[in-house]
Structures are given as C-alpha cells and as structure tokens.
C-alpha cells in the first residue's frame, strides 16, 4: 500500500532514474545511480527520499539503506551548499594536508564532518582524489584545487566570498 507520507520523486529525477533502468538487467541494479541522481537534485538523501527511491526500484527501504550508508559519498544527513573533500592520503599528508585542514577549520569554524553555521560548507576527508602529483589537493563542490597552501586557501575562499557578494 502506498503511503501518502512518502513524497514522490520529481519528474526529472524519475526520468533520469528510468533512463538508467532501461540499461540495467533489473530495477534494483540502478540503486547507486538512483541515489546519486536524487542527491544531485537535493544535496543529500533523506529518509523520505530514500523510501521514495526504494519504492520506485521495488526494493525494501532497509536494502537500499544498506547500499546508501555503505558509500561515504552518499549523504544521509544534510550537507552544506558546497562539500569540501580534503585528501588526507599519503602524498597529501606528506605535503601538509593536516595544516591545510587546520586552516580550513579555523576559517570556517568547522571540524571534519561538520557543516559551517551559514550552511555554506561541509568539510569531509577523502582518501584520494587522483592528483597526487599536485598534492595537497581538495575538491570544493566539483572544482579541484591543487598545490594547496595558506595563500591558495586564502585565494579560494576570498574569491568564493566575493563571487557571492
């Protein structure tokens, strides 16, 4: 029985998911893509969104939640406008990723896994961004920033603030 309490997916989301289903052997096979699609529209995957996806894919919510929570980059809690993924893997670590993290934390007043008060940024560590030759690196939204140091950080955040103003 469909409960009216579970919100529907948007037409856009549904058509994107159905597009994936067309290429898959069974509906449940597109679970990860469906989660990514909904997250790209809503920023994160709430319980209600998850239930709506599960219903659309004919899966149980528990089964889909098992998949959603397995992946670090499917967000099951709200995140800020921009997610900062700061690499802390070996190369970036050698090149001073810890100091970079301190800088960011000091600037935005957030620790790892936290969202800034203005809801602009969420800071998360990541294992590798595939740009070790330009370490230390971080991803802000979809923008990769390399060769990070104090000056670079200053520039990144200042320019973003200015862009907003």
């Amino acid at each position: 029985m469909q409960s009216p309490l579970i919100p529907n997916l948007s037409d856009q989301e549904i058509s994107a998911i159905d597009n994936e289903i067309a290429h898959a052997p069974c509906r449940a096979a597109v679970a990860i893509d469906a989660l990514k699609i909904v997250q790209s529209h809503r920023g994160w995957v709430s319980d209600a969104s998850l239930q709506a996806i599960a219903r659309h894919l004919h899966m149980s919510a528990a089964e889909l939640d098992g998949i959603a929570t397995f992946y670090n980059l499917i967000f099951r809690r709200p995140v800020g406008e921009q997610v900062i993924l700061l690499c802390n893997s070996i190369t970036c670590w050698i090149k001073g990723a810890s100091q970079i993290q301190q800088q960011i934390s000091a600037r935005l007043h957030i620790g790892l896994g936290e969202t800034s008060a203005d809801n602009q940024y969420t800071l998360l560590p990541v294992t590798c961004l595939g740009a070790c030759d330009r370490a230390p690196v971080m991803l802000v939204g979809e923008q990769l920033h390399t060769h990070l140091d104090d000056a670079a950080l200053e520039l990144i955040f200042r320019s973003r603030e200015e862009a907003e103003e």
Partner: protein
Amino acid sequence: MPVIRIDGQDYEVKEGDNLLQACLGLGLDLPYFCWHPAMGSIGACRQCAVVQYQNAEDQRGRLVMSCMTPVSDGAIFSLAGDKAATFRQAIIESLMTNHPHDCPVCAEGGECHLQDMTVMVGHRDRHYRGLKRTHRNQNLGPLIQHEMNRCIACYRCTRYYRDYAGGTDLAAMAAHNHVYFGRHEDGVLESEFAGNLVEVCPTGVFTDKPLQQEYTRKWDLQSAPSLCTGCAVGCNTLAGERYGKLKRIHNRYNSEVNGYFLCDRGRFGASFVNHKQRLDWAGRRSANGRFDAIDSDQALQHLAAACQRGGLAGIGSPRASVEANFLLRTLVGADNYSPGFSAAEQPLVELALSLQQQTRALIPSIKQIESADAVFILGEDVTNTAPRIALALRQSVRNIAYTMAAQLRLLPWQDAAVRNLAQEQRNPLFIAALADTRLDDVAAATLHLAPADIARLGHAVAARIRTARAHSPATLSPNKVSPNKVPPNEVMDEALQQQADTIASALLDAKRPLLLSGTGCGSAAVMAAAADIAAALGSPAAATVTKGNVNNSDSDSDSDAENSSTTASKVDSDAAGPAVMLCLAVPEANSLGQALLTGPSAPTLEALTVRAVGGEIQTLLVLENDLYRRGPAADIERLLQHVAEIIVIDSLDNPTLSASTLALPAASFAESEGTLVSMEGRAQRHFPVFLPAKERRASWQWLLACLQAISHPRTTDLQHFDDVTNACASDIAALANITKAAPDHLFRNAGLAKVPRQPHRYSGRTAMGANVSVHEPKQAADEDSALAFSMEGVNQFQPGALLPFVWAPGWNSNQSLHKFQTEVGGPLKGGTAGAKLLQQTGAADDHAAPLSPSAFKPVTGQWLLVPRYKIFGSEELSAHSPAIAQLLLPAYLEITAADAERLQVDEGDGVQVMDSASGATLATLEVRINDTMADGCAGYSVGHSAHQGSIFNLVAGTGVALQKADPWQRRTQSAPGADLIATDSPTNSNTAAPGGPNHV
C-alpha cells in the same frame, strides 16, 4: 570416506564436508563465528583458521579458513599449531576492541558464543586502550531487544534474516568498523521468524525482550524438553523456568521437524503460562450464583459424584494431550465423547486424516519439505496456520541452486557462491490462495481464487497429469486412468486451464513434488483436490518410500537418504519415479491426535447439543476447550443451558470456564506431561518444566483421580503417566505407537541416573524459597518421567526426546548442540524424538477421483466468507502472551477496494456482516482493504476478539451481505505502519547514526 590428519592423528570424515564441520563432528573444539550449520560458510570472520600442510615434509604450512576448506583424502592440518592459535587469538582480540565487555548486564551472558570463543582461544589481556565505537539502538518491537554496541559484525543476522528467512527489513548498513545491523528505521521486525535472531546472533545484539522483563541466566533455568502448542507442526522446544514462571522458549533441535528454528508464535507465545488469569484453585458455583474456591479433595468428590449420576457427556480438546482426552473418553464412554472440534472443523480434520491414511504419497516431515523441488499450495496460508512450514518452503525453492552448484562441482555449503550462482532462479512454487500470502515473493505464480475454484484448478492439474502420464510409455502406473477420474471440463476458464497446464508440467518434471493444503481455507474440496493431484502423480516408487515409514527408527533411515538438499539428488527418485509428498495442515497441536483417538463419526458438538436439549445429558465435562471458539455463542449457550452440571478443566480463564458449575485448575503444557500428535502424524511428548503451583494439576491427573474414585474398571491398575499412555496405546490401535514417543519413567541415563532439568551451575537452590521458609526444602520428585527436578544426573547419551538443555564443557551457548548430534546437522546421538503413527494404505489412489465442484460465481451484493489467519491472534493461547498481545490487531474483515467503494467504507471503518439467508447480523468488524482478495470473497480474521471483546464466530463458506456500520468507533489509530514512516526532517533520521557523512 576421506581420511585426514589433524595434529598427528588420522580421522575418517565425510566426503564433501568442510573442515570446520568435520572437526566439530569429530568432537574437536574449533572456534568460529560466521559459520552456522543451517546457513553454510562465507569465510567472513576468519576465526576458524587452521594450518594446512602441503605434505608430510612441509614444516611451515599455511593458514586456511577451515569453514572454506573442503576435506580431501590425505590432507594434513593442525588446529593446535602456533601459527593458527596465535592468529585466532588476534582475531578475537580485534573483535573485542569494539565490544563493550558488558557481560554482567547482557542477556546473552552465560550462554554467549562470543564469551565461549574468547575463552577457547585464550585471549585474556585487553591491550586496546582507545575509544570504542558506539551505536544508537533501535526499537525493534516487543519481541526483540537491540544492542548494537555488542556486535562483532559476523553477518549471521542478515544472512539468516534475509537469505534464509526471506525478510526484507533488516540489513547491514554502513561499512568499516561501524557496520550496523538494523532496520531502515525503528519498528517491529516484519518476519514471522525474527525471534531466531536471538539464537542465531553469537553475542548479545539481538536478545529475547520479554525474558528481560524478569531475567534469568541460562544456568539458573530449570528446563525440560517441551513442545510448541501454537499449531499442528509440533516444533520441539526447550522451555525454561525460574521462580515458578516460564521464562523463555528456545529451539530444541529435531533433525526431522524444526531443525534449528522456530516461529515467533512458538518462541514468544508460551507466556500465557504466567498469565494472571490462570486458574489456581478448584471452584464451585454456589446456590447464589457466586463462584467459591473449594478444596481439591472436595472438588474431586463433586466430580466423582457427578460422574456417577449418569447422563454424562464429555467434550475433549484438540489442544489437550492424547492422554487427557483418552481418559475423558474412557470416563464418559466413546458414544458420549465429542473430540471438541467446531462443526465446520470436525469433518475437515477427519478428512485430512483419512486422505493421509489413504494416499501412497509420502507424508513429509519438515526436513523432507525442504527437499521438495516443485511445490503447489492449495488454499493454505501456511505462514499463518503452520508457520514453520513456510520457512521450510523458502529452503525448498533453493534446491535448484544446489543442483546448479553440483554441476559446477561447487559444494553446497559455499553459501555466497551458491547464492550468486542461482541469483533469482528458484524451484517452482505455485500458490492458489484466497488472497496474498507471505510466500508470494518466492512463488513462480500466485492465483487468488475462491475455495471452489482452487479445488477446480487442483482437479484440472490432476487431469492434465493423468493425460500426460497416459501418453508416456515409461510410466507404468498401477492406478490406470479411468475416464471417470477426469473431472468435468465444462466451463474451465481458459487462463485458469493454462495455469493448470503450467503447474501440471512443473509437477511432472519434478522428482520430489509436494502438494500442500489443509483445513485453512475451510474447504474439503480443496484438500481432496490436493490429494487427487498426489494420486495422479503417485507411483509404486512413492509407495515403497512410505510403506516402511511407520516407526521411529525407519523414519530415521528415511531421513538419512533425504539428508537436506546436499544429498537430495541421490534419492531413489530417478529410476523408480517421483517421490510425491502430500502435506495437509490441521489447526491445532493435537487435532490429528483427536481424529486418531475417536476415528470418524464421533459425536459432534451439535449432536451433543441435540441430546442435551432432549434432556439426555445432565453432566457435561469439558476438557481444556473454550466452546465459545467452537460455535456461535447462541448455539453454545443452548448446549450449556440444558445441562445441569458443567464441569470444566482448564488452565486459563475463558467464557466456558465462567459458565461452569465446577471448575478444576489444569496445569499448562509447561507443567504437565503429555503426548501430542502433529499434522504429519508424529507423536511427541512434552514434559513438565516445573511443578504446577497451588492446586493446579495436569488434566490427566484430575481425570485419573476421578476414574479411580468411581472405581472405573479400566483404570484400577493405572498409576503413572506411562500407564495411561500404555492403556491408550492398547485400546486405540491407531495410537499404538504413542508409547515410542519418548522413553518411560523407568529410563535411567547410562543405566544409572535420571536426566537433570537443572544445569550443574544452577544457583540458589536452597535459598530460592527463603522468603517463605529458611529451611531447605526437599527437592520435588518426579514419579512420572525419567527427568529429575535436580542438578544431579547425566545430560548426555540419552534419547533425543529427553534432552532438557544443551550444554557441553567450554560450550555454554546453544552452539554446543553439535556435541549432541551424530554429525553437524544430523540426528541427535540419542535418536530423533517422536514416533510416526500413520499407517498408509494407498487405497485412495485407486479410487475414482472426487468430482470437481462447480465454479464459484460471485453475486453482486453478496460475499463468500473465507477465513484469514494471522500468526498472532488466530491462535487462542498465544494471544494471551503479553508480548504477542501488543501485536494483535482487532478483528477485521478484508475486502477489495472495489467492494469497499461499493459499500462506501474505508480502511478502519466498521462493517456489519449479515447472513444472506437469515439476514441476522453475525458480527461487526473493522474494514481492511486487500485488493488481492479473490473476487466475491470477504476474509474474516480467524480467532480475533471482536469489538465487544468476545470471540465472534463466523463460519467459512457462509454467504453474507455487508453494510457500513454507523456509528463506528475506529479501533486502529491509522493504517498499519503509517506511523513508522519518517518525515523529511533531518532531526527525525534514526539511521543517520550508522551511516551519514560525518562518521569518519
């Protein structure tokens, strides 16, 4: 058989086993977590590591996981080798880094597999000083307690719940060292078999919630081998008591019946034993209508006097033991004894018995049901009427996976590989039912039909099989196809005929086809149709399988041949034709025993009523039976009003007891010994777990005392329970084998001692009653069984029927079971409990098939009442268990959305149910919309209390008219489950704890 060398010693082991299984079977101690005998190996926990050597020269060896290593001739292993022992210790140490060490407050403590394994590997010192990860627990409903911090991530819970039991609402969440096993959000676990998590979880993540209300450790429980009285499957249980209260039910392994698992009705439905409305004293209604407690001797005198006055009749009970029923029948005489079924039920149960007696098909045990390779269910909603069978059917549809695996030389215990190989491929399971069932997700096809149409479909399948057989030269069936066996083909719907063809060809292709039906849809025609298909499929081969299958030892050897799916392929089916199985469910724990006791044409309740109205009955004795559940209240009152003396022996207060003139307090199943006959005709014995309190006595004791008080000739030499069993066995030929259900009271273990009900660590024996008296009481004696109310004795070597608990040195948990088995997953060393009673003639297979009923034609404005069972609520006694009472729904009527619209009612509204013929209102029930209901049918919840609190009585097959009830006080708050759906707000997210972005 391959010979392997373990630590310098040679052992013969079974081909195809894995090393862990082999070691445990040999009695060697080897720690493990993720492996489970019923679920195979996945090699996840790395706990069972051993050293394997290349050859005799190899001094170094390499670590292998024993659960993933097949035994092969000449292989050399070491369990004790340093490398393996150190590794195993390190594994436990790493598991323990996040374990809270909260054993003193953990309900698993004292029977914890994790504790046992930790001690076994010798991990003593905690080196880890860091923080432990913590989780938020979920409320999983009234049955199961959740404490995730104790988890060691062995994945057994989800493997059991999802892979084995088919549940969808429990999953492994998140990753790394914060894996979380739970639901998407708080809520009652949906599976009817969720309670097994308590025994499957190797530590204290999932524990028995009702037990925790008044907790007792395993070592303080007094236990006895018992039986579940919740349905007719006859699952074996271990019931545990402390301070005069039944504390819990655990599974008692029986390789033929319940194996390792119970259903939740069985596990949590027995605490009606502790109900405050239990009858404690005998009572007599005085002249002013009041009920006074009286002395038991006095009560007995009244009873004896009443029995001597003449005009005596008795009503037995399908939920009371064979012995109590036999004594009542002896007391009142066979002509005056009614087995206590309802008018509708009696012919159905008698038919179920005679169909089973007259078929050549095998009457399968649960283990044999698991081996079926094609199943057709006719009308029975087994998940709700005989739940444990539904779990077995879920295994049967996986047999194709083992066949595929065998072709690739993949061993059946390679669980992940075998499941991956088969994916969604399943053996065919066809369900023709009144509406949706909980097995639909694994069914090849489900059809929702009225009973008559289910029967027609069945006969059409049988006809199709006969036609196919007639044209096949290979089959020389003794029952030649006679034209009159083919039911009239007249107006068979074309789509239905196609379905019949599909089902017939699947059954014809099968080597072990199973036909499953029963009394659950209230139709004799449906059961007859199932038997007809079995007859059509039947062959001489099937007959040879069943012929020897009458006593205990034979059934053992049978089962060896049919040892699980692993070896199913080598059963004698290829050459000799298929081994057809016919399984018919009956309603109650001793329904079949009653049918065997009385034989056909026993007086019905109606017959007794007629005689009572005619003034022939002055005294009516009612044994453990609430008559108001057996017929419309008006009919029952008519019977009771015409009887001067109504004597009721029962345990729990009910309307019949309230109507009695003399009430005698009966001991429950947990306080008495008795034999029950399960639906497959297996006689099994339950033993008293503890002595009945106050003046409660076993029903057979009340009746025997009465018989002796009136010097009844049949009972002068009867003294012990066994004497009654023997008398019954010698008087009733059909019950001759009940004496083999368990050893008698003279049995002594190892020739010396009784079997102790208390573990050797039982504490406080002399102090438990100190609040009453500081003097040490004498231990109670048990004159009627070979079990003792004591710690002294031997709990080893005895027959399986006398196993009161499982414990072995170093193995405090239920995992010690392998020490009691001949091999892992095999029969108990002492032999399988129980004795099969049914003698099969095969006569029916040569008779003309019963004619198919005519098609059901829905009439606008009229509905056919059909029964809908619920695992919680349809059974009388379990519904009184406090934990289960929280899950009960109010009585309801299921109709389709279209019908609801026609009646202008919505879910939760009231609807008046009126007899079409008489126009009389039968009941007013809450509407539930179920679009899968067969056209023209309305499903009523069987056994549920109606809104006045009394048991309504609707009869399956009645034509009724429906009308919106106005005014109506809604009984359920909202649609079931709606309150469990979260809103979009982040604060309401329960599952964010295990996963979420900030878990790093």
